[in-house]
């Protein structure tokens, strides 16, 4: 949507989506806490109607991660949609393909390398989320503790250096795998698309 249409309020939506990228993560977490907290405007509705509580839960940690990595994802999708050749969509139109038909059979397949790579990078970033999670979902081992949180916690305990080093290695490996995988998939798809 952001890539293709010029609509009223587009700059605002654009800024909103990208906000977590520039805002200190702790602030993002605090904003989430305010809106999704049990007394927040959305959080109270969720709690009253569905009995769902997001603060200090695994779901909450996921939400915090999602909000933080969303801009990364949006940027990737948007970039790949913008580089997709509109001429091919025109060709598809003259061949009788309607709007959704074009989106699923031409535009998305052509943008797929960018979207996939964006997804993988976003996933890797997600694993390393710290500030927003600790603020919004706290640091509850086994529930809302992300890798960096666990490392940080380990470092706070005397004699926890070994554990911290272990966890850091896990983090490093995951990040590397993520990056290499995205590179490899991107290349494979590009070859398939004949670029």
């Amino acid at each position: 949507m952001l890539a293709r249409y010029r609509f009223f309020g587009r700059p605002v939506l654009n800024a909103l989506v990208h906000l977590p990228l520039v805002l200190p993560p702790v602030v993002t977490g605090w904003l989430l806490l305010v809106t999704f907290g049990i007394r927040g405007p959305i959080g109270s509705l969720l709690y009253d109607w569905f009995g769902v509580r997001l603060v200090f839960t695994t779901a909450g940690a996921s939400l915090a991660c999602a909000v933080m990595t969303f801009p990364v994802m949006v940027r990737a999708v948007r970039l790949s949609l913008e580089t997709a050749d509109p001429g091919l969509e025109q060709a598809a139109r003259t061949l009788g393909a309607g709007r959704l038909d074009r989106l699923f059979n031409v535009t998305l397949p052509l943008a797929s390398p960018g979207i996939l790579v964006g997804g993988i990078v976003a996933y890797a970033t997600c694993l390393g989320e710290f500030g927003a999670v600790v603020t919004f979902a706290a640091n509850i081992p086994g529930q809302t503790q992300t890798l960096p949180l666990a490392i940080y916690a380990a470092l706070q305990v005397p004699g926890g250096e070994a554990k911290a080093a272990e966890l850091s290695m896990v983090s490093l490996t995951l990040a590397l795998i993520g990056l290499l995988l995205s590179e490899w998939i991107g290349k494979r798809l590009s070859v398939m698309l004949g670029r």
Partner: protein
Amino acid sequence: MSLSVLLRHRFPSVRMDMAFEVPTPGVTVLFGPSGAGKSTIIAAGAGLLRPDECRIVVDGEVLADTSAGVWLPPERRRIGLVFQDARLFPHMSVTTNLRFGMRRAAPGPVRFDEVVELLGIGALLMRRPHTLSGGERQRVAIGRALLAQPHLLLMDEPLAALDAARKGEIMPYLTRLKTALKLPIIYVTHALDEVTQLADSLVLIEAGRVVGCGSLSEIVARADLPLAQRDDAGALLLCRVAEHDAARELSLLQGAGATFWVPLLDAPLGAERRLRIPAREVILASRAPESISVHNVVPGTVRRIAGQAARGSVLVEIALPDGALLSRVTSDAIVRLGLTPGKPVLALIKSTSIEVLGN
């Protein structure tokens, strides 16, 4: 049956106001310099650009009529569009590309095997677009457009991106296509050789206006139109092979109410051929010369004499019983022969200076 187009549109820098009507089926070539408005007609025909005012009717079917609020979107128009760059889908094989429009269209008369055979792309079916040469790509693009069962085929400079060799490779397929399919085709180009080989009707466009419209032989033989200003101006006659004289190594062609000897052709009697006779190769005479090597002495009548000050010459239109020739001579020659419109004249044409093109 006919194809009629009316288009008015105001771009920031130019105003377009064009209208023409041509018979169908057949190839209508839009010819003119780039930026003249040819591609605007194609885009409007395909529905990709909506002009301020537009009416397009193909064989009685209204594709667009802005005054009546009719504007079919491209996906519902059933037109085939061949772009200058083939625009094949890179993530699909040649076969999938070819079937893309076919799967989305109601069944029609154009069959898959027939198109593959006609365009000679049978060996390419399993390939990916990026492994094809420019000419092959363009042939696949033409096939893809045809298989969508269009009522009208639009071709926007399909050969402009190809070098001369590739162009030569694809041209025979286009002429075959033209005779095999009874389909109205609008073909945009600014290359004269494509015009002379393909066109049935010709629409000349300059700066957003139609400056000439009619059958190919009629338009190219008009001394007052922009085509006549070119170095390679000349007449184009549709002829049939009437006789082969193997002993003299000559063939006789008949057309435009006259006959022409050319070097021996390898074509059956009755076959259609296009003759291009460049204006600079046509000599004028008031009396039949004797002992001369020229084979063709064609009688006609002077129809129009157009001065071309820039060249220091004049262009003479010579009416034949059913067509016309062009001759470029000096104004001194006009005075010496006493030529004026309506006067009889003889056109002398060397058999070797006649270009014989495919049907």
